[in-house]
């Protein structure tokens, strides 16, 4: 220790060391981005496998077929006859069908208000008690009356009803089976699962009259087609980017493709040719969906309750009939029936790039962490810089032989003579930077409040207005601050340091919860690390504040990467309607508990604002 410490102490002041952080930071970003691109390669991803031995997917004969086809057709006819009827008629009919199958039906009304819209409807469900089991666990079969696109899920609902009748005849269920027909695909499942766990907000959501045990697995059938389908599209993203256990997904894939020979696709990649590009594209689509964190199907609402859920969606025009889909559900339910414990063996954090290929958290997490760490590194570097006195002025014309002032340091019986300059530490003016950073983060509550409480008619207008204001906002803030207290170079450094520190901490934490969101926000914020003069190491005025030209360039870059501009760009690229997207986000916050907006307005936007203020030429 005694040998090491002087070396380290000397190294601490080494100007070369202080020049290092910006390069290190840039390297982190570079490695983080390259890391992500390497993931689809065979060497870095893995083939999926069934981790839980009890599942035994596809080991049973499926008997759903034959005369069940007639039952299904009859139910489908009944469902089609209900088109255009009011909710009461639909619910009554569904209840009657459940009753005729020997199951006890129950209903639940719900009503949500978000973005000026009313989302109301009624869930109808029935519980099939395990003939020889205890009622401590349940598995759930869901069919929404209308699918995510608002189209009548005619075959899906009829299939769920036919399966309910069919399952009733088996005596081998170890868990209760709940068959749930939700009023729609977004609000209905959320209302039901909230009420099932007594988390519902009365009086808008009614409590459930019938309940069973802990939910162990959920399968949603979505088949709005009126003809035979080609393949199954498995949707698995939950709210806030949470995912169901990979074993459930693998079971569905293995049964559909292995046992029944139905093609499987994910993330709307209908034709997957197993190339690097396709894999990367699938993975990025998955990450994008995860990053946005919105509800991608009726299953999404279940995932936050740690109930593993997936949606099976029939797509394309092929030769698979509804009975094949029914057999697939039957086989999945036989596998779920085998479970002794909750899904726990396989991964909860993964990125899928193909139906049978994935990367797990251990492999992909460093990517987002490295991007988040770059902010922390720069924050530390800026903190050190802010405490260093300006470099001694050296007259260039006359090299005056002047000895630097020396001072004797005594520590632990060791004496050293060091230049006085190395020992002086500038007092840091913390008040203004800390206040500014903290208040800006709280200021994010204003756009958050506006965008979750406005009506869907006014949302696009407000957003346009906000984009316009946001364009001038850093300039206005900079002017106000400058009038009040002119910022010193040290203020500049500290302001940036604190802002980056907060951003780094937030993103590193977020990376473990919602990897994709953290990575996207991190990558879009990378310029914030390098505004100012990152490669100088002192607190000098001319060093700390960049030149006018640079300021203009940085302002332009930051304006292009401002949160509202990015939202516009995303809408443009994906061809989404801005108003719908904002309404959906507001609905997500109110109904599903979606946190993406909080991250955008209270983490990203304040960090961006500080960056904008710092590069403002007026300052």
């Amino acid at each position, binding site marked *: 220790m005694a040998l090491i410490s002087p070396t380290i102490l000397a190294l601490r002041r080494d100007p070369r060391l202080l020049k290092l952080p910006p390069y290190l930071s840039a390297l982190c970003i570079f490695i983080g981005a390259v890391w992500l691109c390497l993931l689809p390669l065979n060497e870095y991803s893995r083939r999926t496998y069934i981790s839980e031995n009890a599942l035994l997917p596809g080991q*049973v004969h499926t008997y759903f077929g034959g005369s069940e086809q007639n039952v299904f057709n009859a139910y489908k006819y009944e469902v089609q006859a209900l088109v255009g009827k009011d909710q009461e008629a639909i619910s009554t009919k569904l209840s009657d069908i459940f009753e005729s199958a020997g199951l006890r039906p129950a209903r639940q009304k719900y009503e949500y208000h978000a973005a000026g819209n009313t989302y109301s409807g009624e869930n109808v469900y029935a519980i099939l008690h395990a003939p020889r089991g205890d009622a401590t666990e349940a598995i759930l079969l869901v069919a929404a009356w209308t699918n995510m696109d608002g189209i009548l899920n005619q075959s899906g609902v009829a299939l769920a009803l036919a399966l309910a009748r069919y399952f009733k005849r088996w005596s081998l269920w170890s868990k209760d089976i709940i068959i749930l027909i939700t009023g729609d695909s977004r609000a209905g499942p959320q209302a039901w699962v909230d009420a099932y766990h007594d988390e519902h907000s009365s009086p808008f959501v009614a409590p459930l009259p019938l309940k069973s045990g802990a939910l162990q697995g959920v399968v949603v059938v979505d088949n709005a087609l009126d003809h035979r389908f080609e393949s199954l599209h498995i949707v698995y993203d939950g709210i806030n980017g949470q995912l169901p256990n990979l074993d459930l997904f693998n079971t569905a894939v293995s049964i559909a493709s292995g046992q029944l020979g139905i093609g499987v696709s994910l993330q709307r990649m209908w034709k997957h040719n197993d190339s690097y590009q396709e894999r990367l594209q699938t993975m990025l689509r998955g990450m994008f969906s995860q990053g946005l964190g919105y509800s991608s199907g009726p299953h999404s609402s279940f995932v936050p309750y740690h109930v593993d859920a997936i949606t099976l969606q029939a797509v394309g025009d092929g030769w698979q009939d509804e009975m094949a889909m029914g057999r697939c559900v039957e086989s999945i339910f036989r596998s779920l029936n085998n479970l002794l414990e909750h899904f726990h063996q396989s991964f909860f954090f993964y990125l899928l790039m193909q139906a049978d290929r994935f990367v797990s958290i251990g492999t992909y997490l460093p990517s987002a962490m490295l991007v988040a760490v770059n902010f922390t590194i720069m924050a530390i570097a800026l903190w050190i810089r802010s405490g260093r006195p300006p470099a001694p002025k050296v007259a260039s014309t006359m090299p005056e032989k002047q000895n630097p002032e020396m001072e004797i340091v005594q520590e632990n019986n060791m004496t050293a003579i060091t230049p006085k300059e190395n020992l002086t530490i500038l007092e840091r003016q913390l008040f203004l930077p800390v206040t500014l950073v903290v208040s800006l983060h709280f200021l994010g509550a204003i756009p958050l409040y506006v965008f979750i409480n406005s009506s869907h008619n006014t949302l696009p207008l407000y957003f346009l207005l906000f984009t316009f204001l946001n364009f001038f906002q850093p300039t206005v803030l900079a002017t106000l601050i400058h009038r009040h207290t002119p910022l010193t170079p040290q203020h500049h450094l500290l302001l940036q340091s604190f802002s980056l520190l907060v951003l780094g901490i937030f993103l590193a934490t977020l990376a473990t919860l919602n990897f994709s969101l953290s990575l996207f926000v991190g990558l879009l914020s990378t310029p914030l690390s390098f505004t100012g003069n990152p490669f100088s190491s002192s607190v000098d005025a001319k060093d700390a504040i960049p030149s006018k030209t640079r300021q203009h360039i940085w302002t332009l870059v930051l304006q292009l990467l401002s949160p509202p501009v990015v939202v516009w760009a995303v809408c443009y690229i994906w061809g989404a309607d801005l108003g719908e997207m904002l309404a959906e986000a507001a609905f997500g916050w109110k109904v599903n508990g979606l946190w993406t907006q909080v991250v955008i307005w209270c983490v990203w936007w304040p960090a961006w604002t500080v960056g904008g203020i710092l590069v403002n030429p007026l300052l």
Partner: protein
Amino acid sequence: MACNPRNAFPGTVYNNADRALDLYGDNIEVDYRGYEVTVENFIRLLTDRLGEDVPRGKRLGSDGGSNVLVYMTGHGGNEFLKFQDSEEIGSWDLADAFEQMWEKKRYNEMLFMIDTCQANTLYKHFYSPNIIATGSSEIDQSSYSHHADNDVGVAVIDRWTYYNLDFLETQVTSPTSKLTLADLFGSYDESKIHSNPGYRWDLFPGGEEKGRERLVMDFFGNVQGVEVEGVGGNETEWREDMRRLEEIIYRARARGNMTGAKKSETPVEEVIAPGRDLGKGRVEGAAKIEGVEAWGQRVLGAGALLGCALIWGGASWLESR
């Protein structure tokens, strides 16, 4: 297993997807089921470390004359076998449990059979005498299932178990079958079993040669053979033991000066076990000590108490003066 709600055929366990032979039968008694099957319960059962309130049905009522068959199957690996999802029994655990059984005279001969992946590693550490061990697969070898029943949804039987059962069903046709372990082990066909079964003979007196002569029914059938007395070479041996025991009792009695020791009311349980007859004969057990001096001792004790009381009374009278 038969009563698991997941069983598509309640109350039955079949050895084959053709569902011809119901292993559960009409008179099978399962003593430990479900989550009762733990390593601790198993070892307690073997070594009889059970409380007094445990019923006979949950005990292994074996003694020094019993032949014990231990057949284990499940998920295992190198020197372990899984119990439930949470614990496993190691080969040393088993070896020590068997040694305790031997010390407590809980078996005469033991046949240990195990069907799991790397099964032969599990009997590696046995060190107690009179054990014949066999397993389904060598180290780093998997033990495979025979076939699955697609209505039950699981593999119904393992290969090695299947061929053992096949042998017992087809070859061992009567309780008096004279087929030996050599026949059973000889029936193993490695190309059918898909793994290499292993055997361990070195613990058995006489080694492989003697072990192979043991009848299958010695372990698998609840057959209680009777041998005619006086023919076996053990006759003189146990008579010698009895004589010595009598001597010891006689000497002890003389030393304790016991004159009226009664004969034990209960004779030692007669045990008739296959292969060895312990014979019968009345053994004098421990008896209650009853002596004539009892009254004299009581008088002496009362006198001593009286003396003490007198001394105490006299001393307090002297002190008060």
